[in-house]
């Protein structure tokens, strides 16, 4: 049983092992210890761990977005809300209550999950009965409202945000970066497996039916509203966990976690990677974020004019995005899969 599972998923197993070994491998190649140099968080391995943690965070966020957009067919423009809520709640618990260390962390995580679930439920209940476009508008408005509110709220130091100082040592990314790397990796793996399990379950079958034709799913007798609510609530909770990891990595909470870019990023990553596929959002997240990092300082010459790739990364992404929507609506993974089935025939 186990052997068969491992054999049919050899690709994921190999990838997982590679990601577990990677910090050590980089450390071995570069000579910089994966635990940092002389107790300080510096060196090649630490640097790449940081970048990969960001990739994991974005991949989890994109996967949660994909659960709503790709698998259920509901467009949300407010995903940043859940991401940011995760960050802010942990921050507020650690900073403004007497709870610190492990207790604070646990309560922060628990509260994050509860609040994001409630938010998802409430937003869903209000708008999901209406046409899809209302949900898109409503989520955009709510997310923007929270963004404005937290960028002016004196309690959370408005635009500046505040630092997380009372983290337990074992999770503190400046002191125990490698542990934190494995925690983020674990979240990625668990999210991936969870979403796959969910989609292959009877519930997942209904979600797909809602995406294909909600009217028909309803005539068959499914309470489609409940299933859409479920998708949005679960996706919101996953996104809030991603936000939580993000603020721990930065050791800082500020309104930028609620910024609309945290909606745009997963949207682009999901569609470019392949909406409605399991690996698409992960590939999208890795591709776009690594691309951003690697090309940041690249300047290319086109016909005498030099174009700064890094500075115009968002513009390039946007154009790629539009082309993908028009020409390859199934994204990288979906298009590849279609091409392969056609080859097989």
């Amino acid at each position, binding site marked *: 049983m186990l052997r068969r599972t491992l054999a049919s998923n050899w690709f994921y197993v190999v990838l997982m092992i590679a990601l577990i070994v990677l910090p050590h491998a980089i450390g071995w190649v570069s000579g910089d210890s994966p635990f940092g140099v002389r107790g300080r968080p510096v060196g090649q391995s630490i640097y790449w761990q940081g970048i990969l943690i960001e990739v994991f965070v974005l991949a989890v966020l994109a996967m949660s977005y994909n659960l709503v957009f790709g698998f259920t067919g509901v467009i949300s423009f407010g995903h940043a809300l859940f991401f940011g809520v995760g960050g802010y709640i942990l921050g507020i618990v650690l900073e403004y209550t007497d709870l610190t260390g492990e207790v604070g962390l646990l309560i922060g995580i628990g509260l994050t999950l509860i609040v994001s679930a409630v938010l998802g439920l409430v937003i869903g209940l209000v708008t999901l009965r209406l046409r899809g476009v209302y949900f898109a508008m409503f989520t955009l408005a709510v997310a923007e409202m929270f963004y404005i509110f937290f960028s*002016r*709220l004196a309690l959370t130091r408005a635009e500046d945000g505040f630092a997380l100082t009372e983290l337990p040592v074992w999770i503190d990314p400046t002191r125990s970066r490698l542990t934190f790397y494995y925690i983020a990796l674990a979240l990625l793996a668990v999210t991936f497996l969870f979403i796959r399990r969910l989609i292959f379950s009877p519930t997942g079958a209904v979600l797909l039916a809602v995406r294909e034709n909600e009217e028909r799913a309803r005539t068959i007798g499914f309470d489609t509203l409940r299933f859409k609510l479920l998708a949005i609530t679960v996706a919101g909770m996953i996104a809030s966990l991603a936000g939580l990891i993000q603020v721990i990595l930065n050791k800082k909470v500020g309104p930028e976690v609620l910024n609309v870019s945290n909606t745009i990023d997963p949207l682009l990553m999901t569609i470019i990677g392949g909406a409605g596929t399991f690996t698409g959002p992960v590939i999208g997240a890795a591709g776009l974020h690594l691309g951003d990092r690697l090309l940041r300082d690249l300047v290319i010459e086109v016909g005498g004019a030099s174009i700064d790739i890094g500075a115009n990364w968002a513009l390039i992404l*946007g154009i790629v995005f*539009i082309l993908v929507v028009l020409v390859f609506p199934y994204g990288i993974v979906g298009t590849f899969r279609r091409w392969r089935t056609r080859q097989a025939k």
Partner: protein
Amino acid sequence: MRPNILVSVALLVAVVAFGYFLSPDLGSFGITIMSGLFQGMLLFLVASGLSIIFGLMDVLNFAQGAYFMVGAYVSYSVHHSPDVMAAIPDPNIRFFLSVISAVAVGAILGGLLERFLLRPLYARPVFQIVLTFGVAIVMTEAVKFIWSTNPYSWTVLFSLRDQSFQLFGQSFGVYRLVVIGIGFALIILIGLLLQRTRIGIIIRAGVEDREMVEALGINVRMVFTLVFTIGCAVASFGGAIAAPFLGASAGLANLFLLSAIAVVVLGGMGSYAGTAMGSLLLGLALSVMQVFAGKPQIGLPVLASMTPMMLMILVLLVRPGGLFGKGR
């Protein structure tokens, strides 16, 4: 009177009365109202296109705010360009030309968007929404690429922009009044276009039943392109005439998009009269809220920036069809 008009007028009166109640004297009340009408007119210029486009083609154009932004940049650039300054020294005439350029650019970009990006996607409406969102990103980023990320403020003045008159001990800008006048004129003009002309009848019929319009022998897709072009041109016009006050910055795109969406929801998606009424209401409400939230006893200026979203959420909760809509 029909109940929706009654409710709208009641709301309008309530907002104005609240503004009056907050004002220490007639002069500052006048300022509040004028500022509200000014914002309402700018909102109308973005929201009208948004609403008609949605009603006719079921496309919620998330790029509508970006057209407002582009209008502001084009108008700013033409007005401040040294070459144009040398050719047309009179700033009033130059400003007129700036506005026309902005309208032309908005119209061309709007037509291109509908014809080449949206038209292939009418069979996939989910992707249309996502696409307009993507277009908004690209336009905002393209603007940053062309004009850099720094916001511009209007520096080369012109007499129309700077004249003012005294009333009740306050000084009122003539330009704001002109914008308000233009806004009212456009509300009536577009209304007449929809009521009286053949194309207007086709648009209103298309909002009800596109398939039947097509079956009568009318090429609906050409009407789509036309409406999209006009809608984007009007938004761009809004940005152009707002630029002397607001300057040009990438943030304009989102600022007006969210408020315009709130207007469209408030008025009822696809209803022209609702959009006009909703713009006025939200403009005045914004202005009154700015006064209210700025009061030392309240001291929550953030309330004013949250007004459009709060209003939209409230409408969706209470009456999702909006003031003039049929619901859903």
